[in-house]
């Protein structure tokens, strides 16, 4: 018998099998669970229940609103930061950029806990007692805090790619600082805005760690909503997960997705 010759292609088999069993199959399983009942018969019951229940729909809507506010605030903070850093002439600007990414290396939950303690301290001060009940404010603050680097990094990388001669050309042609910004910087940074928005919007719709730890469990977002069905109603949980899946893929598709080199923590800086 001939020993099969080693081929480089065979290397993809283990990962292929892994993807099949632990990525593709689970997706199909939730699709199956979403459209079946406890007796495993095909049913639209979950679908109907989901779209006729006002509390479920309102959770989705206000989860979207929280995510939207978070994204806008993060963009309003990150854009000037990225712009200032990308256009500055200081030698060590990547060190400053690193400063923005550094807190990301502390465990996520520990970081949220730190924000919680800070809020506790501030709300003890005279005149700040309103803060202990400002659940939405605290949740959104926490999300902006945690996801800010996801917004800064893609913006910074796109702005760094803008050719300096374009700025010079704009100035030569008599463009003021503002015109240059509006006609050169802004349009050319749109891809960065898009990937930043995707990377902040999606987790702030689903990552319930922040909303639970900072919102005194008064703020329910879609992610938390799925969790409440954990272990007791897999079918309804799967239906909500499926809806979320569709929302996620639609928004990624609309914003053109994001690039691998801009993803997490600036490991590729």
């Amino acid at each position: 018998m001939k020993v099969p010759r080693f081929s480089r292609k065979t290397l993809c088999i283990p990962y292929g099998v892994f993807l099949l069993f632990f990525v593709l199959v689970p997706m199909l399983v939730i699709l199956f669970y979403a459209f079946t009942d406890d007796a495993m018969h095909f049913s639209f019951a979950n679908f109907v229940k989901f779209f006729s229940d006002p509390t479920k729909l309102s959770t989705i809507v206000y989860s979207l609103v929280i995510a939207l506010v978070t994204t806008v605030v993060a963009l309003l903070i990150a854009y000037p930061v990225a712009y200032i850093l990308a256009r500055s002439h200081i030698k060590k600007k990547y060190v400053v950029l690193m400063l923005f990414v550094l807190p990301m290396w502390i465990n996520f939950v520990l970081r949220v806990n730190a924000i919680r303690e800070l809020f506790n301290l501030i709300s003890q001060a005279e005149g700040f007692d309103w803060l202990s009940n400002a659940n939405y404010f605290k949740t959104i603050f926490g999300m902006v805090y945690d996801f800010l680097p996801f917004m800064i990094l893609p913006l910074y990388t796109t702005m760094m790619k803008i050719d300096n001669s374009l700025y010079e050309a704009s100035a030569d042609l008599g463009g003021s600082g503002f015109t240059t910004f509006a006609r050169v910087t802004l349009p050319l940074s749109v891809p960065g805005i898009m990937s930043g928005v995707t990377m902040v919007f999606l987790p702030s719709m689903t990552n319930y760690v922040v909303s639970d730890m900072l919102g005194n469990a008064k703020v329910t977002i879609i992610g938390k909503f799925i969790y409440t069905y954990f272990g007791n109603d897999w079918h309804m949980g799967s239906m909500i997960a499926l809806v979320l899946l569709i929302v996620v893929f639609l928004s990624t598709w609309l914003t053109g997705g994001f690039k691998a080199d801009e993803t997490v923590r600036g490991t590729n800086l």
Partner: protein
Amino acid sequence: MRKQTAIKCLKAGFIGLILLLLYAPILLLAIYSFDKTNLIGRFQGFSFDHYVHLFTDPNVLGMIGNTLLLALIAALLSTLLGTAGALGMYYCKKRVRGTMQALNQIPVINAEIVTALALTVTFVAVNIERSWFTLIIGHMVICTPFVVLSVIPKLKQMDNSLYEAALDLGASPFKALMTVVLPQIIPGVISGFMLAITLSLDDYIVTMYTRPTGFETISTYVYNATTKGNAHTAVTLSSFWALTTIIFLIIVLFVVCSNLVSRKKKEETK
């Protein structure tokens, strides 16, 4: 000229303010990690109690051990699987490559909660008990795609003719792969490994869903202790202030050192 200086100050002020906001919570914990009590409010007196607790309490040490062991195993396995996968995909036909890349994107884009729920429902459907196995699989699902994504660009930059040359000189395909291809992609493999470690260390949601009963990592413990805490958890929780401080110091040291090293390298190449 004066206007320019004013703008410069404004810019620096803005950056400074945002950085201050980013570091305020961490600094607060760092200060109170040296406090006698476990209440944040008035500083009661300097002590190393929280640090002592952190390094002596078997519960706390167990959680830290779990977190690190899980991250290490998951990251090692993800790196092996992902590197092999990326290599294989690179040499496969376009159709196979495209399909695998698309599947690889799913856990990257997907909300973690959906990934976690889908996996758990699948495990339940085929009657697999939650154990270390399910936990590691869960972590591999979120880590491996990032390993693949950081190896692929290195493969694209690689000089293919070197591999051919190795074969011409009589190396077996496997040997050529290990001695010629691997050294060229190793930076991507390392950054993939680092990414996998941090993703796993940070994870709460997937751990929560796939862990065996009674298994606690730092994330799951701190989450539960803050959302439904009591007097006992408060003691442990404040020892995690000490942990946060230590992690932060390690990171700062690491960044400073790597900066010094890269500066040295640059000077040498000059």
